């Protein structure tokens, strides 16, 4: 028998009656108002099951008028992935680029609203030249790029052949003879001046990579009216960036150029082909990187005097743990997506294993371990990624953790605090040793309580984890009370709360919405909420298979059409 066995007995599932109560409350929209108002932007809570739990037959997709098309700039990760997919061999891709912008929690949505500053243009130019020089200097990359042997430094015919193919790939569409001619002429002129074909090609390649056709994703659609189909090649890009977070490969581009991709069966076939490819793991990782803001973890600032485990690599390890868990769930198991919250399986390296208090599986890299119940830690919300990110540099934060649950997992809107409000909390003292007592300020002041009553009772449930996710039973010598309730459903601790959230009818719709927004690069309009609800019905109907949700999203009219061009 384990010495920690008594703790295990304290953990357990919330009573079925309590789970039913939560489900009912959520479906009816009770108690979920953000700061006193009904939650905004909350996706429909229909989980596609009848009260018996049996899946119901889903009707046809609702007719929707999609939002106006967006012109998306490549995110930094898309820029890097695209270059790596275009060129062979090792490649250093500069990261000093115009920064991505988080809008509504997603960089992919922010990419539709950002412009490029004059300085940003210089950064893209410098990056393009850096990459082009590497490609022409690397025997492997150069051999893969040059499909012809130049007859001289100003061989515009060879330049046109090479850059025509490169531009088609980079710009993700057929290129015109005029476009290719301009590129070839540039190479010929510089090649002649420098006495070197390669010197000219450096500028030719760089020109392709600096082009707005490469840096921006044009998904304007065609035709007229309020509902217009995206073109076949635009659809290929949408598909590829959704599933691979990169440009289409040759097969997809060829299918798109033939126009066949507009056929639903072909589109589904291509979607499933892409999902079966290793690049899909990269795409999925990026999706969750954005949704959970994991990209903020490497180099995250934590006070080393407070957190002894907070070495500089911990954040990066925490990010990888979460992404490996998502990968395993989606690609290795094709399991119930909601199990991300309750899984007792974790992928940890030595550093995280020490933080969690479990034996590491391997001395090097990450390995799969099982988290025993007595550790009180399971699922996404027991991972250091969430617990570190949603904390302060010197302490945990019940408010930030509660906001994350509301906003990111349940898609409820929690307004930011007013600019003039004092958000500090009292220092710990003998009468208020734990955060629960100190947060009473939030809850006793009606002005603060309107929002904090929605976040803090949830966030306090994670107080057994400090600001980097290390388990603790006490704070300042006092026993931590991690009990609370989520809209009327009581939980004793984070371990129980995981199940409450797993069973929340808002969880599925929320992630359906994340995927939809990520795929189309903008916030849905009211019309599209119905489509998201319909997609969620399908999600639930497949046992919350995330892969099927991705395919369903791709085939949906919201993904294949755009609204009026504005």
């Amino acid at each position, binding site marked *: 028998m384990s*010495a*920690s066995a008594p703790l295990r007995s304290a953990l357990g599932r919330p009573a079925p009656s309590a789970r039913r109560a939560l489900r009912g409350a959520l479906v009816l929209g009770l108690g979920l108002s953000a700061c006193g108002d009904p939650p905004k932007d909350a996706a429909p809570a229909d989980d596609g099951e009848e009260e018996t739990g049996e899946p119901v037959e889903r009707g046809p997709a609702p007719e929707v008028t999609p939002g106006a098309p967006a012109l998306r700039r490549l995110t930094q990760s898309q820029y890097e992935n695209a270059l790596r997919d275009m060129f062979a061999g090792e490649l250093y891709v500069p990261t000093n680029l115009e920064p991505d912008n988080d809008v509504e929690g997603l960089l992919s949505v922010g990419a539709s609203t950002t412009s490029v500053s004059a300085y940003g243009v210089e950064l893209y130019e410098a990056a393009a030249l850096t990459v082009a020089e590497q490609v022409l200097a690397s025997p492997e990359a150069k051999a893969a790029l040059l499909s012809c042997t130049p007859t001289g430094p100003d061989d515009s015919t060879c330049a046109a052949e090479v850059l025509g193919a490169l531009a088609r790939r980079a710009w993700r569409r057929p290129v015109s003879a005029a476009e290719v001619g301009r590129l070839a002429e540039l190479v010929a002129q510089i090649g002649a001046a420098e006495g070197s074909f390669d010197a000219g090609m450096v500028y030719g390649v760089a020109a392709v990579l600096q082009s707005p056709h490469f840096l921006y994703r044009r998904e304007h659609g065609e035709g007229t009216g309020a509902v217009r189909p995206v073109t076949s090649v635009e659809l290929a890009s949408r598909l590829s960036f959704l599933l691979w977070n990169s440009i289409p490969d040759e097969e997809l581009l060829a299918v798109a150029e033939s126009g066949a991709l507009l056929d639903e069966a072909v589109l589904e076939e291509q979607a499933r082909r892409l999902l079966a490819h290793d690049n899909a793991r990269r795409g999925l990782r990026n999706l969750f990187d954005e949704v959970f803001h994991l990209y903020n973890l490497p180099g995250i600032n934590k006070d080393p005097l407070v957190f002894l485990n907070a070495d500089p690599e911990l954040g990066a390890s925490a990010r990888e743990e979460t992404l490996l868990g998502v990968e395993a769930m989606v690609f290795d198991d094709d399991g119930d997506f909601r199990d991300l919250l309750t899984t007792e399986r974790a992928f940890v390296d030595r*550093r995280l*294993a020490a933080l969690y*208090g479990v034996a590491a599986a391997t*001395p090097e890299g990450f390995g799969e371990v099982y988290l025993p119940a007595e550790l009180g830690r399971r699922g996404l919300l027991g991972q250091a990624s969430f617990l570190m990110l949603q904390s302060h540099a010197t302490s945990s934060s019940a408010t930030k953790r509660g906001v994350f649950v509301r906003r990111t997992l349940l898609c409820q809107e929690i307004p930011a605090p007013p600019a003039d409000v004092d958000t500090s909390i009292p220092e710990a003292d003998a009468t208020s040793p734990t955060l629960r007592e100190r947060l009473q300020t939030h809850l006793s002041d009606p002005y603060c309580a309107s929002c904090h009553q929605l976040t803090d009772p949830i966030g306090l449930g994670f107080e057994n984890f400090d600001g980097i996710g290390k388990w603790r039973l006490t704070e300042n010598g006092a026993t931590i009370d991690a009990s609370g309730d989520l809209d009327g459903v009581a939980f004793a601790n984070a371990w129980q709360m995981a199940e409450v959230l797993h069973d929340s009818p808002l969880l599925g719709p929320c992630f359906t919405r994340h995927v939809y927004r990520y795929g189309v690069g903008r916030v849905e309009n009211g019309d599209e909420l119905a489509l998201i609800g319909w997609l969620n019905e399908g999600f639930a109907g497949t046992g919350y298979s995330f892969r099927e949700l991705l395919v369903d999203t791709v085939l949906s009219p919201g993904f294949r059409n755009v609204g009026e061009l504005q």
Partner: protein
Amino acid sequence: MTCARLALRSPFRLLPLALLVACAPPAEKEGADAEVVDTGDLPVCAPPADDLQGVTFLMHKVGFARSTEGVAWGSNLDGEVSVIGDGSGCNKQDLTDPEGTPGIDNAFAGLLPTLEQTEAAAISGLLQDSVEQGELLLTIQVRGLDSYADDDCVSVAFGNATGAPLMGTDGVILAGQSFDRDATDRVVYVDAADVEDGRLSFASDFGIKLQILDANLDLDVTMGQVRMDIAPDGQSATGHFTGGVSIPYMLSEIEKYAIDADLKALLNQVLPVVGDLSSEPGACDMLSMAFEFEAIPAFFYEESLEEVPWGSAPAATD
């Protein structure tokens, strides 16, 4: 463990450590590598087969147990409470431990201040350095433990771990880390130990492999006693281990290395007369030595535990 494996790549840096070279005579070492202590009439506690891991403590702070006014940690190794002139204990005055237990054998504690006035001044610091550099990772693994407070039948393995320890931001080895079992060093298995009021005690000879700076040292400790007090939450432990080392062997080792002449003269003068334990009646040829430690929870990689099965001998080495 063999003294032949002693490797000195930098004797100059090893000077303070020469005293730690205390390999037992070869004749005493036959068959000692896979050691299961004779428990006499005590019950033998079979470790649970479904829990290879058990609970492991890593000694992350190790130092020599020092004496102050006749008080020092250690154990009564010879069963006697010796007073100078009473004919027992080689006529050496035993110490009393901080809990008031008399008869404590830890003669090295009396020698330590003198050594620290010589070239061996840094001996304590080097010992801790070897811990933090992963060269001395002593572990006590306990299987079948039902309670940190009381358990009358647990199985214990005392040995070395290997691996590069992760350090906390305070410069101390982090708790909860995983290591490999040192498959090349011996592990002492005790299949009938008990925990009483949080105190794990067991008797055993043991070997400690010291890799300090450029030196690889093996230390055989006979007549050993180990004691560890486990915190109620199991998140820390403190304790000490005590045993005797062979003085003739220490003297022979000292002659092999380029030790500072003054220090060598001092050791040759002092060591023959400080023996407080005997390998045979009246020999007084062993020096008692105690180490204090603080320990934290740790783990072994499952693969490592499978590679070095419980009770097994170490892998053969050249």
